[in-house]
């Protein structure tokens, strides 16, 4: 949506950032921000003016745990129809991947959204299980569908996670010390900008919400840099054309009606209290974990390790750049990925491979 003036305004922002003589570290939690930063070369330009932009756990596929992948595999192997986002398909786990299981005859369908999974359940007699992955952008759709009384043969394996509380843990006890947070534009459409205010108040951390065009990202970072430089801490919004202070209250209400917060592990992190979503008891009949408890029981008897040698955890904590992983572009490529960060379009390793691989 921005065209002719982009370059001029981008140059102006970069010149101003340069004149600020910065030496700061900031973090974003959004795979799409990482894509924009790397694709347009912003990440290197920003490094030159003293802004180290780290990626955090912002790729929903990447932060799903090996155990959640194993749950999905167990359900597929038990003959259930699995409806899943395409970039979950290749995520490898100890006992295989969904793609491999599909090759062995399991009924695995790629859907673009939960609405397609319900349509599938309406057509099929088989049990259809939607793998509910994603943050606040995706969770309201799951909530709205469950409120609309989908068919009895439909259920959800709920792997949704929420961002603001995870951010609190990240900045209060996370391994990488950052001076500012760039908040994800489309998660914020749902949560609203007010939702982040407690972080600035309680932890003195500057924040800015940004969209995904290169200029959106630069403007958000400029707002952050200005706050850091001036010793301020508040929530700036560089995406006012889409993000309001209160967010989408209809979506928030749908989530509050259907989900309870729960404790959940994120890949690369320990259990993060209150950052997961589980179905409320009223929706138990759609909860795949309850409906298929017997099939899933053996999954929980084991502890699952990260793939050997994979550094996705370090990448997701912002401690390591993908190219520092010894397996990057060697043993691990998008066609034979070892960890989820090389699978998902929003994964740091896949983004790095696509735009910045040094042959």
């Amino acid at each position, binding site marked *: *949506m*921005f*065209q*002719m*003036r982009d370059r*001029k*305004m981008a140059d*102006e*922002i970069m010149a*101003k950032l340069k*004149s600020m003589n910065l030496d700061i570290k900031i973090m974003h939690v*959004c*795979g*799409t921000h990482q894509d924009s930063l790397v694709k347009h070369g912003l990440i290197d330009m920003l490094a030159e003016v003293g802004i180290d932009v780290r990626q955090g756990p*912002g*790729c*929903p*596929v990447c932060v799903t745990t090996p155990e959640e992948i194993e749950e999905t595999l167990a359900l597929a192997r038990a003959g259930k129809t699995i409806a899943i*986002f395409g*970039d979950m398909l290749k995520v490898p786990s100890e006992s295989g991947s969904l793609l491999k299981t599909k090759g062995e005859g399991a009924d695995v369908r790629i859907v*673009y*959204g*939960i*609405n*397609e999974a319900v349509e599938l359940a309406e057509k099929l007699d088989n049990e259809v299980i939607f793998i509910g*992955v*994603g*943050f606040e*952008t*995706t969770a*309201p*759709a799951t909530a*709205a*569908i469950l409120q*609309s009384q989908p068919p009895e043969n439909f259920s959800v394996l709920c792997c949704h996670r929420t961002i603001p509380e995870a951010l609190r843990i990240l900045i209060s006890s996370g391994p990488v010390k950052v001076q500012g947070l760039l908040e*994800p534009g*489309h*998660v914020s*459409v*749902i949560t609203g900008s007010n939702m982040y205010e407690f972080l600035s108040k309680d932890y003195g951390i500057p924040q800015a919400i940004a969209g*995904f065009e290169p200029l959106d990202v630069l*403007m958000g970072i*400029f*707002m952050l840099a*200005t706050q850091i430089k001036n010793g301020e801490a508040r929530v700036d919004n*560089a995406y*006012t*054309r*889409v993000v309001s202070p209160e967010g*989408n209250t*209809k*979506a928030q209400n*749908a989530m509050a009606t259907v989900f309870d917060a729960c404790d959940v592990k994120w890949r690369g992190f320990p259990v993060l209290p209150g950052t997961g979503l589980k179905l409320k008891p009223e929706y138990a009949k759609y909860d795949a974990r309850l409906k298929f408890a017997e099939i899933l029981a053996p999954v929980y008897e084991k502890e699952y390790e990260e793939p050997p040698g994979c550094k996705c955890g370090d990448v997701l904590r912002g401690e390591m750049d993908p190219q520092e992983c010894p397996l990057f572009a060697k043993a691990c490529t998008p066609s034979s990925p070892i960890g989820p960060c090389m699978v*998902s*379009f*929003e994964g740091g390793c896949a983004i790095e491979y696509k735009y910045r691989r040094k042959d």
Partner: protein
Amino acid sequence: MCLAVPGKIIEIDGNKATVEYGEGVTNKANITLVEVEIGSYVLVHAGFAIKTLEEKDALETIEIWKQVLDAADGGRPSEDAADGGPPDA
């Protein structure tokens, strides 16, 4: 997964709407999470409209940003003021 796409509602049938994304590309989207009518612009994510968009908000963005940049150091180079006119959006 968190990227949403803007489009225009051209037909509504209960909870579902047909959304046009330009160049004749259309798709169905669930509209239970928004208040819309035919002609509304929406942001669509994974088959759900998650936000109603206003065209003026997009136009205002550049103006707001200019003010932010101005405020940062108390002035812009004068050549910018000269080329005036509405911003591209």
